[in-house]
């Protein structure tokens, strides 16, 4: 990944055109609704304005190169963990929060350096071992401070925060080091968001039966199945992202995004319901918190990476 590679890469150019066209089209539709049909949709405008910030940041990082991508995605992981820590109250414990921050920085470093054994970009073996060291460090905190009160909860939340938010999301850092960084990353991010949009749209139009009434009362089976159908079609529609994928990989990609994306969404909803919160934060106006935005990516990134690694090898050498 580098700026000149990115600018000449047909995959990057195609996605840039597609995303720009989608944003313009959405802007036109929203303007027509607001100014011609006189149906004000302020909340959708807020979400749209949010996208106008998110898209250039993510795209800019990808175009700048691997280091910028690792830095930006690691900061997103950090922000996501911080939201979970604030929402659960773990953040008041600066020691445990600090240890997880350091683990996230270590994860970024491990993703950035060259594997000392294979010479590949990113030390993948160490990344997969990182949870061991992170959990060991987290468990040491109450021992060093000679404390027991409330420590089971604090330590559990720190481990959940690192593994679930930072480490699972961190698999994106290694997609950035793979032999198809643009295709994998752009496909995954776009497909996951489309899956979200499809679930919302199908749910609005056909929604009758609640999917998980206790967890997320607005989601319906109709929306969910519609999203799955869209997600199963996407690998064929965007097949240029991974020309080496056969039908088997495409089907698996569709299932990972179509089912995994929705499970990721519901997983954050379980946590939010239990905490009694509507959003995990207010970092992204119109989107809620960072975690509300990346919930599906957290769940799908590791599944997608390991599927790719199983069939093709992350670096194309398997």
């Amino acid at each position, binding site marked *: 990944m580098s700026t000149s590679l990115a600018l000449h890469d047909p995959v990057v150019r195609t996605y840039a055109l597609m995303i720009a066209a989608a944003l313009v089209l959405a802007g036109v539709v929203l303007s027509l609704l607001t100014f011609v049909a006189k149906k004000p949709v302020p909340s959708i405008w807020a979400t749209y304005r949010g996208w106008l910030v998110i898209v250039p940041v993510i795209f800019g990082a990808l175009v700048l190169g691997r280091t910028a991508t690792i830095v930006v995605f690691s900061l997103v992981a950090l922000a996501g963990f911080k939201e979970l820590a*604030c929402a659960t109250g773990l953040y008041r414990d600066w020691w445990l929060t600090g240890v997880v921050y350091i683990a996230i920085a270590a994860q970024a470093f491990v993703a950035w350096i060259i594997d000392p054994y294979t010479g590949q970009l990113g030390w993948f073996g160490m990344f997969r071992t990182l949870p061991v060291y992170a959990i060991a460090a987290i468990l040491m905190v109450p021992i060093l401070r000679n404390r027991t009160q409330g420590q089971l909860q604090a330590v559990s939340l720190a481990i959940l925060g690192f593994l679930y938010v930072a480490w699972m999301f961190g698999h994106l850092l290694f997609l950035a080091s793979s032999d198809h960084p643009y295709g994998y990353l752009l496909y995954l991010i776009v497909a996951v968001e489309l899956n979200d949009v499809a679930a919302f749209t199908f749910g609005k139009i056909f929604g009758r039966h609640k999917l998980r009434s206790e967890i997320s009362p607005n989601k319906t089976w109709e929306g969910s199945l519609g999203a799955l159908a869209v997600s199963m079609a996407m690998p064929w529609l965007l097949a240029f992202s991974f020309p080496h994928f056969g039908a088997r990989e495409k089907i698996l990609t569709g299932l990972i995004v179509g089912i995994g994306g929705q499970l990721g969404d519901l997983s954050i909803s379980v946590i939010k319901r239990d905490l009694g*919160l509507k959003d995990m934060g207010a970092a992204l*106006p119109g989107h809620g918190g960072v975690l509300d935005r990346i919930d599906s990516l957290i769940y799908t990134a590791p599944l997608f990476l390991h599927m790719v690694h199983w069939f093709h090898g992350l670096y194309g050498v398997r």
Partner: protein
Amino acid sequence: MDADWRYEPLSDVGKSLAESLRDFPREPHMWMYGARSAAALALRGWLRVVQRLGVTGRENLPAEGSFVLVANHSSHWDALCLLSLLPLGRLHRAFPAAAADYFFTDLPRSAVSAILVNALPFDRRGRGRESLALCRHVLEMPGHVLILFPEGTRSADGALADFKPGVGLVVAGTSIPVVPCHISGAYRSWPRDRVLPRPTRLSVVIGAARRYPHVPEGKDGALVVAADLRQAVLDLEEKSNA
């Protein structure tokens, strides 16, 4: 499942930055403590080198327990000078009461007031009672410092105005120490109508702590306390001039 698990989300979850900066009490954010400590170090350097800040009576500052600092008010220097008297470790538990209608109106001002100064947003209009309750709440915590300017606003001519009774409503009938201070040179360096300060000398005189356990709570007691503190600050001014 362990029945003892209890989640206590931070009070600013789901609030925008501008809203959470206006919130009080403030949640302990690492980045905020870091920025505040760094700013305090820079400010202390500036006060010592450029403004040649002189301090007398440092031994009058209680080393432990909560207390109130009270001083004359003619400049933005006042709160910054008093903050710089405290040990760095106490910085995050020291709260200058600042007018909400001036210091917390927009995002840049709120950011400076909340992050760098750690100000307590004091509502001068309408909800003064709630703000005084907030002041009392701050002092209930161990080791907290409340910084009050009982004149209520920066003096227009540098002279000491009347003290409003609010400070008395907070401390009358309690044994919380109130430390009177007099700041001189601040008006000449940075009066109301100047945007940036002049690099002229500042000095602070710290008086002996006063306590008001036997003054009755309520309006009358509060006036007694306010008058007594005003006299104490005037005495320090004389001492400072002598």
